[in-house]
């Protein structure tokens, strides 16, 4: 242990000593001017038998008459050298369970019901007057030179009945002694009760409001709060007993409840400490929990034996077993606390140690070598425990709040990250869509190049190769025509970029503009009969390009193969029915069914792709290629 730790421990012990000293009662001694009456002529009535004898006080009923109830009359004779003319008083640190106090034949005070009346059985096990110290005032004139004091008590089994030696003297001497004892036993208890109640209820509220983080950062109820709450609330009941003169339950049941409360307090504290030390899942703590559970189950039996059957040893053994179990645990807990640098565990361990030591002292004083009319210390040392528990609960609550804040911050960050991811995925989708669009357009351009310019150029090359190989006459015009077709196709493809989607009139006009000079050069008369056609919304840029290609093929065929003189281009839109575009020539004609011309298949394919119908009717002198477009 480091010097710092040692100093800390010493400091705690010093504080505890000072604190206890505040309430330590004056020894039962004889102050100046007062008489302590320790000898009496006693009459003890048990089970109908009366025994008279000289008795020395304090008289501890349970020790003298174990397991039996009865009554006792104490007669004190005390002379006074000088009859006082001021107010005197009698202080009794304990007597009961019911009593009467007579002085010189006058009843001074009575609490509870003595036996001997018509309802003798009912007199027992009711209210208990033996809990608080008593003070009886003696008015001036009551005392004589020779005085007879008679104290008559009724005692229940195992209920700490009996009589402490009366202290008689002037009021200003005796009353302060009573006051100090009262403060020690009653006022202090009220403070402890109030304090324990506050701590217990606070811990319970925190537990029930989920305000905790379990281990590994999981949210949930923190069992430390629950055990602290249970301990403090049962302790409230145990300590509060001193304030309840008329208990709601008859003896010995009420007494058994107090014993159980004490056991629950000690066990709950141990459980709370296990949680603090994270020992919950260890094998030895599991065993200890079983031991404590077993003790709690046995508790009513031992308490009953002790409080009802006159076997005080039973309860002594039970207390001892509980005390030893807890002492062992506290030592282990203390050892662990000293080795680990956890402040909360150290503080709690120290408080637990103090309590267990004090409890063992109480066990000795009350049960092993009983002193009548003394106080338990543990009720006060328990405040230390309550304080440390309260402190730990607050520490944990603060830590939990911090963790919750972190969780919230984390959550906000994760939401932001998700949003970012969403944005990115949206961007990716958009990019993908653009890429697809580009790919489609590229595909279209490639296809046009393949079917158009590419086909024409390769055809031109074949023509030239054929000429070079001497298999055919060189056909310069033929090659030129093919290349011209290629060039025209290229120009039309470029024009197609600017065509307004759906505007078939503009498409036809452009075709005429581009190919017109060639028809003229070939002496083909062009007849133009094109109305202003409505927009065809289904034709997008790609479809316009396809339509242009189909029409170019038709016109190219006329130029290359038909040997026509007149070419007529018609574009009409009847009120009902599709838009019709027709290319009509008066050339040689061909058989559209038998013909396996590659261009024709391409035309049909393209027409199907844009949802247009292609109709071809051909005979020598009249060939009609018609494209029907639904609006």
């Amino acid at each position, binding site marked *: 242990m480091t010097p710092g730790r040692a100093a800390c421990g010493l400091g705690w012990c010093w504080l505890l000593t000072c604190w206890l000293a505040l309430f330590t009662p004056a020894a039962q001694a004889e102050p100046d001017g007062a008489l302590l009456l320790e000898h009496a002529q006693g009459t003890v009535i048990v089970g109908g038998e009366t025994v008279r004898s000289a008795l020395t006080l304090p008289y501890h009923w349970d020790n003298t008459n174990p397991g039996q109830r009865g009554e006792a009359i104490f007669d004190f004779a005390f002379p006074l050298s000088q009859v006082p003319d001021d107010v005197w008083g009698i202080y009794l640190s304990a007597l009961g369970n019911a009593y009467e106090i007579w002085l010189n034949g006058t009843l001074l005070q009575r609490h509870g019901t003595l036996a001997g009346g018509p309802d003798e059985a009912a007199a027992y096990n009711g209210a208990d007057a033996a809990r608080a110290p008593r003070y009886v005032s003696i008015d001036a004139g009551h005392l004589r030179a020779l005085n007879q004091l008679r104290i008559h008590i009724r005692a229940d089994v195992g209920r700490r009945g009996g009589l402490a030696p009366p202290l008689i003297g002037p009021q200003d001497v005796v009353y302060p002694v009573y006051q100090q004892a009262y403060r020690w036993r009653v006022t202090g208890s009220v403070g402890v009760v109030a304090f324990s109640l506050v701590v217990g209820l606070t811990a319970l509220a925190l537990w029930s409001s989920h305000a905790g983080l379990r281990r590994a950062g999981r949210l949930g109820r923190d069992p430390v709060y629950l055990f602290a709450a249970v301990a403090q609330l049962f302790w409230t009941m145990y300590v509060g007993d001193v304030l309840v003169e008329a208990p709601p339950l008859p003896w010995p049941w009420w007494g058994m409840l107090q014993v159980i409360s004490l056991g629950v307090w000690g066990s709950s504290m141990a459980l709370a400490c296990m949680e603090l030390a994270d020992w919950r899942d260890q094998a030895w703590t599991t065993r200890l929990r079983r031991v404590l559970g077993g003790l709690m189950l046995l508790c009513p039996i031992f308490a009953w034996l002790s409080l009802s059957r006159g076997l005080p040893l039973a309860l002594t053994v039970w207390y001892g077993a509980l005390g030893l179990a807890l002492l062992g645990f506290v030592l282990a807990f203390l050892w662990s606390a000293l080795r680990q640098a956890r402040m909360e565990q150290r503080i709690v361990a120290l408080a637990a140690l103090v309590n267990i030591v004090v409890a063992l002292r109480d066990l000795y004083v009350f049960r092993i070598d009983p002193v009548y009319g003394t106080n338990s210390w543990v009720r006060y040392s328990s405040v230390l425990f309550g304080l440390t528990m309260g402190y730990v609960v607050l520490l944990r609550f603060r830590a939990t709040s911090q963790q919750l804040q972190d969780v919230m911050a984390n959550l906000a960050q994760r939401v932001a990250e998700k949003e970012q991811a969403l944005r990115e995925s949206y961007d990716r989708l958009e990019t993908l869509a653009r890429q697809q669009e580009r790919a489609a357009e590229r595909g279209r351009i490639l296809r046009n190049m393949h079917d158009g310019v590419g086909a024409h150029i390769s055809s031109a090359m074949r023509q030239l190769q054929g000429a070079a190989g001497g298999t055919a006459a060189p056909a310069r015009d033929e090659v030129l025509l093919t290349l011209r077709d290629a060039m025209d196709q290229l*120009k039309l493809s470029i024009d197609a970029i600017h065509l307004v989607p759906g*505007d078939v*009139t*503009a498409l036809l*006009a*452009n075709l005429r503009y581009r190919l017109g000079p060639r028809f003229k050069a070939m002496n083909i008369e062009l007849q133009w009969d*094109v109305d*202003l*056609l409505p*927009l065809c919304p289904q034709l997008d840029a790609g479809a316009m390009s396809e339509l242009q290609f189909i029409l170019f093929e038709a016109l190219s065929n006329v130029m290359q193969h038909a040997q026509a003189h007149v070419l007529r281009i018609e574009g009409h839109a009847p009120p009902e029915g599709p838009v019709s575009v027709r290319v009509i020539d008066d050339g040689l004609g061909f058989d559209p069914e038998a013909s396996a011309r590659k261009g024709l298949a391409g035309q049909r394919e393209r027409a199907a792709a844009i949802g247009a119908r292609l109709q071809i009717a051909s005979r020598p002198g009249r060939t009609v290629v018609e494209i029907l477009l639904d609006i």
Partner: protein
Amino acid sequence: MWRVLIVEDDPQMREFFAASVLRSPELRLESAAAGVAEAKACLDHAAHGVDVLLTDLGLPDGSGLDVIRYARRGHPECEALVISMFGDEDNVLASIEAGALGYIHKDAAPDDIANTILEMKAGASPISPMIARRVLSKYRAMQGNSAPAPLYTAQAAIKTEAFEAEKGMLSRREQEVLELIARGFSYSEIAELKALSVHTIQTHIKSLYGKLEVHSKMEAVMEATRMGLLPQPAAASASK
């Protein structure tokens, strides 16, 4: 006899165009340049001036559009044609706005090249349906009808809207002609439909070209003013 300046960086192409020009007895090759700077020098130092500028757009030291603008500014008598591979919408429109009156395809036959030059000098101005449609859209947007104009709605718009000749830059007749060109009709067909001569139609188109050029200059001025490169008109007049 029209004096022609050819601006083309590809020597083979340049020779082809030169040969095409030389085929026509009505054309004379004034000079052939390979870049913007050289072309400007030729324009400035030509002994008898240049009547026709035939320029490619993509030149090693700049754009053919610069040559056209330079020629239009310094030599208004010089008319420009653009040499274009595809005659595509964007390039043609940009050329017209720079001051060109038409274009010649690179794959055109030699006779066609000479013919196109001569036709231009005779007042013909070819315009494609696509360009006509673009021009219509553009002017309609300027008039506050911001919807792009497919032909179908365009005609209705022309019929219903009273054309504000004093505000807009196209006359009603010009718009009607453009409209029909955009629908694919030839000049002769339009002439028949509108009971006009083909020459009148060509005049309309030529005037449209001029307007496009002027308009593009105005746009440039407005843009420069907006960017603070030129003083605000109000501020400029106040400072006088």
